[in-house]
Structure formats: C-alpha cells, structure tokens
C-alpha cells in the first residue's frame, strides 16, 4: 500500500486513493476544504480548486516536487509522496486567492439566504478567506427561478461546482438541467424551462454547497439555527428512509438527508450513500410518520450555528485578522480561545 505524508503525518492508503481521501483518513485540520468534490458521486471534483495542495515530493521513485499546486481531490497518491497543506504558507495564500475568486461574484446575501448556517461557502470564507473584498465591480446577477415544484434556484449564489448536475446524471432517470453559456456567463439552468421533478431530484439540494438550490417547502419558514435537528427513519419503499427532521416547536418544517462532517450524505452499513427520495423529503412531514432516534450530532463548524451545536471547532477569526482588516481600530487582546464557541468562560 502506498504511503503518503500530509503535513508531516504519514498514512498508508489503498492504491488509487486521492490525496484528499487520504487526508480525510487522517482527519482533523489537515483536511483540505472541498467545495465541488463529493465522494458518493462519480467524476466530481477538479472545478472549484479550493482543495489545492502542494506536492513537495512526487513519490519515492521520482522525488521531484510537482511544479504547481494540484487539486487534491483529483490527484492519486504515489508511494512516498509528500504533501503540504496547512504547513505551506504559500499554499494557504494561494487558497485564499481561490476563495477570493469564489466570492467576488457571490451576493453575500446570507441574511436572507436559507442556506445560512449550514453553508460551505460561509465556512470556507471564515476559514480561508480575507476579511475584505478587493473587487469593486458589480456582481453578476440572475433572477431566482423555480425549477420544478420543489426546488428554487438562486443562480447568484451558485459556485458552479457541478454537483447537482452529477446528481441528476447519476441518481435520477434523466437529467433535464445543466450548465449553459460559457465562462463568467455560465449558469445552471433547466433546458427550456423544464421542471425538475423526479424521485431523487431533492438530493440536488443536499449536495449544493451554497444556497443556490433550496427547498421550496422550507423557504423562509425559519432560520436553520432556530430549528432542532433530529434523526429519524421510516420504512420507505424507495430509499433508505433514514433522514434528519428539522423541528420548529413541535412541527417538522424540513426533511433532509443526514450529513457527515464534510457535509456529505452519510454512508450506510453496506457502504451505500443514504440518499433520500422526494416522498420522504417533501411529502412526509408529520411526526407520526417517523420513528425518532434522537437529536442529531451536527459535525460541521457552521458559522452562524456556532452557539447551538456541540463538537464544533473554534472559529479561526483571530483578533489579529480583525485588526488587519481595520487598522484604525483598537487592537484588543481577548486572549486565547476567546472566539471558541465552546468556551463558556468568555
């Protein structure tokens, strides 16, 4: 089995494992952020470039470093490969550049976005971005549209990760949406105003890392951080029936799949991704339909939800960075861990 060293931690992984997957096997802070890769979908990754890493040694046999950063989600490890992620300041700088690109046309309308609180772009921005934008040009704008009875598309927020396209290709019985136009003008669209209505189309909402695809039945009902997630299941003839119910008071106001720490749908006992069908998601919202298992463990570090969920990491916003953004302000030393949501003493 090839051995790879990522940020000074070595691990042996099966032949054909990507750097990103190897990093996830190690876990923790050294895992590169991934906005377009999705382990349960084939052919994802390579587009967003947030997962780039520096390969300082190609392999045992050919120790030459790779001249450019590589997309860790699409690069397989070689025996003796040495990778730098968090230990390379230049790489982190380059990643900040990628994040900046993803944000210059993003509306940052988090206050009115249903994804706020569980948005990967928010996390990414906090963890790897800069505090101020350097772009002064108008952002790209599109009108929000309903694509079918269940899904709302806010193209303004889309980062063109292609995940929803792959879901439609791989889970539903006929894709009727995709990327049209080129370059900066690219947009996700249905072909000639077709509606997306398909047993498994709702999973497009779950794979969308941002608020571009949202659940029309949940729209503006609440904010994610006011709701309580609970794991539940039922006997479903179409899918695994394993879901996450989002309660407001005694009402189920949203049903989603269960997600792991990387925001991907959880893996079942046979290694199968636990996608859910549209009936479970959109039409089964009575508590009596479900057998409740207990409160969900949210493993993400979602920014706005920080005060509500356990097992979170501290936000990486240091006073140092706040000061950098506003050099005219006063520098206050809040002390180590001041912004750690789990730190009750502050």
């Amino acid at each position: 089995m090839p051995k790879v060293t990522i940020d000074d931690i070595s691990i042996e992984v099966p032949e054909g494992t990507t750097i990103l997957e190897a990093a996830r096997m190690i876990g923790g802070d050294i895992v590169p952020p991934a906005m377009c890769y999705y382990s349960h979908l084939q052919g994802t990754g390579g587009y967003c470039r947030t997962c780039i890493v520096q390969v300082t040694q190609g392999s045992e046999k050919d120790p030459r470093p790779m001249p450019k950063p590589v997309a860790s989600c699409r690069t397989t490890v070689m025996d003796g490969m040495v990778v730098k992620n968090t230990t390379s300041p230049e790489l982190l700088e380059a990643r900040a550049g990628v994040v900046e690109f993803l944000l210059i046309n993003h509306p940052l309308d988090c206050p009115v976005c249903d994804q706020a609180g569980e948005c990967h772009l928010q996390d990414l921005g906090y963890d790897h971005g800069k505090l101020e934008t350097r772009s002064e040009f108008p952002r790209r704008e599109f009108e929000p549209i309903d694509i079918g009875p269940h899904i709302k598309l806010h193209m303004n927020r889309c980062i063109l990760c292609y995940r929803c396209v792959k879901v439609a290709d791989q889970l539903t019985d006929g894709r009727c949406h995709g990327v049209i136009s080129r370059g900066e003008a690219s947009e996700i669209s249905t072909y000639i105003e077709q509606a997306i209505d398909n047993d498994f189309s709702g999973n497009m909402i779950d794979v969308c890392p941002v608020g571009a695809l949202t659940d029309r039945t949940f729209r503006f009902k609440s904010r994610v951080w006011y709701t309580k997630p609970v794991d539940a299941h039922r006997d479903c003839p179409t899918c695994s029936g394993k879901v996450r119910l989002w309660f407001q008071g005694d009402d189920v106001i949203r049903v989603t799949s269960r997600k792991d720490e990387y925001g991907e749908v959880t893996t079942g006992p046979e290694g199968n991704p636990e996608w859910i069908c549209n009936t479970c998601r959109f039409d089964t919202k009575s508590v009596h339909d479900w057998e409740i298992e207990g409160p969900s463990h949210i493993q993400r570090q979602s920014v706005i939800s920080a005060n509500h969920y356990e097992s979170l990491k501290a936000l990486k916003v240091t006073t140092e960075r706040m000061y950098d953004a506003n050099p005219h302000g006063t520098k206050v030393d809040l002390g180590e861990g001041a912004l750690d949501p789990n730190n009750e003493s502050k």
Partner: protein
Amino acid sequence: MSAKILLALDHIEGIASLPVYAQHGGYAVLKKVLSDISPQQVVEEVKISGLRGRGGAGFPTGLKWSFLARPEGVPRYLVCNADESEPGTFKDRYLMERNPHLMIEGMIISSYGLGANTAYIYIRGEYFYIARILEKAIKEAYAAGYLGKNILNSGFDLDLHVHVGAGAYICGEETALLESLEGKRGNPRIKPPFPAVQGLYNCPTVVNNSETLAAVVPILDKGGAAYAAIGIGKSTGTKLISASGHINRPGVYEIELGIPVEEFIYSDEYCGGIRNGKKLKAVVAGGSSVPILPADLILKTAEGAPRLMSYESLAEGGFQTGTMMGSGGFIVMDEDTSIVKNLYTFARFYHHESCGQCSPCREGTGWMERILHKILDGHGSITDIDLLWDIQKNIDGKTICPLGEAAAWPVASAIRHFRSEFEEYVLNPHLIEDVKHYYRLQTT
C-alpha cells in the same frame, strides 16, 4: 534540404489539386512508407527527427506517439488540431489553404504509424472555406486510393473526416476538442487520464497540430536524421512563423529554427524591419499567451547573447527575462504602441473565451479585464496595478487547463517589463481622454 520544406510547393499554381500535387512528388512518400516501412519504423523516424509539437507546447512528437496505449481490440484515433485560434497565429490556415494534400499525406502516414483507422481534422468554424478545400482534397485522395479500404494494397484502412468547430478558442485545447468532437460542450477534461490512454470516445488518441502532421512527410521522405540536422540543438527542423504587427512584410514565413531574432525582424527575406522607420518597442513572440518582451530582451538575452528563433533561446532567462516559442505567432510592436491598450485587448479575449469550469479562470479573467478597462478609462490607481499582479498570480498554475496561464502570463509580463506605462496611465488620466470612447466595457 533547404529551409523551405513545408512551403516548398506553396507557390505552384493549382497545388491544392491532387494531380498537380502528385506531379511534384506528392504521395510518393506515402507509397514508399506503405510498401517499405513498418509502422514501428515510422514512429522511430519521427522520434529521431526530434520534431516537437507545433501547436504551442513544443512536446516531442515521437515521444507523445510512443505513449499511445495499444490495448487489443480497441480502436485508436488520430486527431488533427486545426482549431488555430490563438491571436497572432495564422500559419495552419496558410498551410492548409495552399497545400492541403501535404497535411493529408502526413495524416495518412501518421495514422499508419499509430495504427489508427479513423482520423479527424478538427477545424475552427471560421475556416469553413478551408474545410471545403480539405474536403475536396480528401475526396480526391479517396478516389486515388490513398484513403479508404486497403490503401495501395497495403492492407491498411483509413477514413478521414473533417469536423468544423463552432468558434470557441477553448476547443483548441486538446481535451476540450475531443469533447466537442464527441458532440458535447467544449469543456477541457481534468487530466489524467491523458488522451494517449483515454481520448476520443475513451479510446487511445493522438492529437497533433496541423503543422506537426505536415512535417511528418519530409521526415519520412529524407529520414529523421536528415530532418534533425536542420535547426539548432533540440529545436530541429523548420517552423512556420505568423508575423504580424508593425512590420514591413507581415505574413507566414518558414524559418530554419535557430536564426537570430534580429535577422527575422530586420531582414528583407522575412519581416523587413519596422514600418515607417519606427523603432522596435516590444514583441510577443509565440502567440498572445506568451510573455511580451521589450526590444532589448527579445533581440538579446539578459546575458547579452543574441536571441535566436528556437525553443531554448526564446525561453532563456525563464519568465523573468525570457518568453516562449509557443505556436509561432510573432507580433511586433513599434514605439508608438500602448502596451496597456494591447494588454486590454488580450485580456478581453481570454475573458471571453474562458469555458467557466474552474473558479480562478472563470472569475479572474473578467476581473482583470475590468481593472484594465478602468485604468484605460482614466479611473485607475496605483493599487490597481498591484491588484492585477495578484490576480494573475492567483490564476497562474491553479486552473484545470492552460487557458488560465494564457490569460495570466500576458498580464504578468506587461507589468514586469512595462510597469511605468501603467503608472503613467493612472497618474495622468488626462492623457488618455482620446482612448475613452472606443473602449467600452464588454459585458457577457
């Protein structure tokens, strides 16, 4: 062999027709190859010749051919890249328009060497009239038995198709080209796998530039060693250069690799010097994507040695003081040229042509164009120049395909060598009143 190899026959009336081409020795090399030479030997001769890809990257053709996977029972394809869309490059057009049979003969020989029974010419949509010329020539070749089943009784079959693109620069990138040829959106593929293993319809495929494939004919005619004797060092043979800009004699020239740049610009055999007796200011030596160099650095390297028209010499000094051979689009600028305005035109092009798959190129190319427009519009500031520098740096090396770099390098090199000109624009906005009206921000 003289320096005129690919263009040796281009002055002959009617050379585009098969009978005239045949009168001047056309298809004699094909006949010799099919009767006397094995496919392996064809690949071997190309290796010996040292021929390097003429599409831009300069990758050794023989080596590329030797990477071609040959699994049993799986078809292999040869694809000719005639998409020629890099601004400043127009040599394939001349080659195919004047003497289409030369490239076709080269493709038949190459297909034989690679064991491909189907070959495609992917030609840019704007060259539709050349597509007609090629189709006519292909018809003639079928009729003469040079294409089709059992060519010249050798047992070798080959079908050759012309596919006309729809006018996207990105479809010149080999994997986007293959996608487009398969009838899909022209998005570059994420590599690996490389086309040599999984190319057209997931089968092993070689993609070569038109000029590369045409050069196979003289190589198999006189032998790889004779071809390698032309040129200098690892830059063997001849190269077509598309010369444009402020010169007395713009056009397509075939040069022996290794002649001094100074000779190429000033000799009456080639560019014939700068127009109207002006002074040389800068040159983009290999098509719009390669770094621009100021006059002193294009004529001489940083060490003071004469700069030569070869892959190595043009690249000497790296990007600090050198550039690249690229596709041979040689754009000459005189002393009156505005580097910033020229850069804006390039930036606009790359912005327009980005396929939009990866974030740095999709978002960065438009941003750079907007900043350049702002500067030209008299609203720039010194920090905009630094921002431009940062943006190009953040694109460079972080994209799926080299279009990102193609967009970044011109910006980087213009700032590196001509920063004072950017500063002049931002510090003296009143000087640029006159350009305002014809630079409107392009919206996509």
